[in-house]
């Protein structure tokens, strides 16, 4: 008898498991926590502080989704992933979403069967050189030795850029960013190349950041964004529109300071009303309640606030908004309308 019960329980567990995999939203609600894949540590984007609390720009996206879905920005289980384990963690269902500064590329979107729900940071590959070298443009780097991480897209971009401009270079292969930092400071290479945000963070850690310049050329497109698995479009919609809500909130002037006030009663801007749920039924359409976007914005503020707090010009990383400004301010951040 016991055995039959046991087998029956196994079957039920299997069925529940299969069904839960299809509806991530129900799964997350039943579990009470959102499993969010992040990096094992990247300055400004995701890192635990001295008390073990995760902080950063990518982390903020996870917290916003958790607040929208579960109503609690702290009920997130952060699953640290390396560049090698991130995609399997998502594909196998270990995490519900990945916010791990991952570049949106064709093959990742199609061949690996993921769905990039948007872009939270437009990055690109840049160059850093010592000021003493007297170089002002990457096109003057003819014959330079360049420190480059092996096996990354940056390596291919570098070759393309130099070939296109018909100049030569000598690569110095390195394994990690930390190694690159050491090699570059030790003078093993004239220039160091990686994503511009990474260069800025690296330079910020130098003893004399002023002695080094980041050249103006950006030689590749690296749109970084959160992603989910293929096969659950409803869940993908929730993550996509949570990110869009953060971006729209900045455009519409909704901040963490005024979101409560604006959500308490309808304002005279219909789009703000629809976003914050005082008008229309957008929350219902994605399977959440009317306050979902309000909660997501209340966690850490809108996109601009998150940017300033984690990676903006007043932080040690000191990134300018650049491409990541709103389309109204000369950037390319452009959220579809909330309608």
């Amino acid at each position: 008898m016991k055995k039959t019960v046991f087998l029956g329980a196994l079957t039920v567990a299997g069925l529940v498991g299969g069904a839960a995999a299809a509806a991530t939203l129900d799964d997350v609600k039943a579990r009470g926590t959102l499993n969010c894949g992040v990096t094992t540590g990247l300055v400004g984007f995701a890192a635990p502080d001295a008390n073990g609390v995760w902080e950063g720009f990518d982390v903020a996206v996870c917290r916003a989704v958790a607040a929208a879905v579960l109503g609690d920005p702290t009920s997130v289980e952060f699953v640290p992933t390396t560049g090698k384990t991130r995609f399997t963690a998502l594909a196998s269902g270990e995490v519900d979403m990945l916010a791990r500064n991952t570049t949106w590329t064709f093959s990742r979107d199609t061949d690996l069967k993921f769905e990039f729900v948007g872009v939270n940071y437009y990055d690109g590959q840049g160059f850093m050189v010592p000021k003493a070298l007297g170089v002002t443009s990457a096109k003057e780097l003819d014959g330079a030795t360049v420190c480059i991480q092996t096996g990354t897209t940056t390596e291919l971009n570098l070759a393309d850029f130099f070939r296109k401009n018909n100049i030569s270079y000598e690569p110095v292969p390195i394994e990690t960013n930390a190694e690159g930092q050491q090699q570059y400071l030790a003078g093993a290479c004239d220039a160091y190349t990686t994503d511009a945000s990474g260069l800025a963070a690296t330079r910020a850690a130098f003893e004399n950041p002023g002695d080094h310049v980041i050249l103006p050329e950006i030689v590749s497109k690296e749109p970084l964004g959160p992603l989910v698995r293929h096969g659950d479009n409803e869940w993908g919609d929730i993550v996509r529109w949570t990110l869009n809500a953060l971006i729209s909130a900045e455009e519409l002037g909704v901040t963490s300071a005024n979101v409560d006030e604006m959500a308490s009663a309808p304002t005279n801007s219909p789009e703000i009303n629809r976003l914050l749920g005082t008008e229309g039924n957008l929350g219902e359409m994605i399977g959440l309640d009317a306050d979902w976007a309000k909660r997501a914005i209340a966690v850490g503020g809108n996109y601009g606030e998150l940017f300033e707090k984690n990676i903006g010009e007043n932080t040690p990383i000191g990134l300018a908004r650049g491409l990541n400004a709103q389309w109204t301010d000369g950037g390319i951040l452009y959220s579809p309308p909330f309608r």
Partner: protein
Amino acid sequence: MSHDNVAFHREHMLPEAPPPVTETGVIKWLRENLFSSVANGLLTVVTAYVVISIVVAAAPWFFNGIWDSPSLTACREMLDGRTGACFAVLTERWNQLLFGFKYPDELYWRPTLAFVLLFAAIAPVLFIKFLPRILLIFTGLYPFIAYWLIWGGSIMVPIMALLGVLFGVLVYRRTLTVSAGVAVLAGIAGAMVFWWAAGFLTGSTAGFMALEPVASRDMGGFMINLMLGVVCVSLSLPFGIALALGRQSNMPIIKWICVIFIEFIRGVPLITLLFVANVVLAYFLPPGTNFDLILRVIIMITMFASAYIAEVIRGGLAALPRGQYEAADSLGLDYAQSMQFIILPQALKISIPGIVNVAVGLFKDTTLVSVISMFDIVGMIRGPILASAEWNGVYWELFGFAALLFFITCYGISQYSQWLERQLQTDHR
């Protein structure tokens, strides 16, 4: 003839003169060891120069070190251009380096106590000649105590696990008269049945004498390295012995299973096994199952280490003269007895340096788990600490600290093994 004819003759002995300056004390030692020839003298001077310049260069780095500062930038301001280390990262993040960033800090005493008890538990094994055998009981209990301390939860879980083991041993004893192989299988089956039955009991007494539970994924730092090292080395020794004996067995199926296992595991890099543990298994298990990551890693590292230790022990077995096996047979001992009393004691003694070599290598290899996003000490340094805005750019202090911890542990193991070899020395030299 009288004494007058003798020009001089000594009446008494000369007092003992001190040896020449060059043949005594410091100078003798210097001459013999450092300046015995022109070439050696030259080498000494060059080496001394190198050593002194390293010390001179490193000393200010150590002595100007800042031990109290909130961030690297603050450190650099305090140093004000002087050379100096920023040890403040160690004083601020020591807990993360040792226990990981998620282990609750009011519970640090639990792994610490488990660590202290570890010495009490292994001492009776390491110094078996000098300590009373009764203390081995504590060694047997230690795994269960340590599990309870580190993971927490109800005390019923480790107690039931222990009772299961005892039950298995009882079954083994009872069936030993049939045959050793059957007894081992029956013992394992008995323990399994007991654990399965105990699962119902522990489920209902979950709150009984419970420590606050800590999940595996909340553990990190040097604690993980030590846990993996201790567990995997102690598990891989019996498995390694079994595999080595199996490989020499006359029974073809057992022999080939052991050969294939050893050759396959040895032919695969450890990092591949770790990726299998972390990534590939996730595809095979149904979604939502949480097969403990630390357990998966322990299984993989133990398999890896067993294969290596098996080969080391096979070397020891091969080194024994054929006569030893024949002597055991001629005494009428059966296979189990001859191995237990004649062959293994000698073979293991020969294998000590090799086993220690594997153990030390394995302990250092536990840092590889940082590539599968576990936060062991290296993972903590490369991930959270270097990625924090405050400490981005501190390398020497952190990696030096990790190196120091590993050096202390590995040097200790190596010293013990040399002592043990001297203790067991019964060769005809």
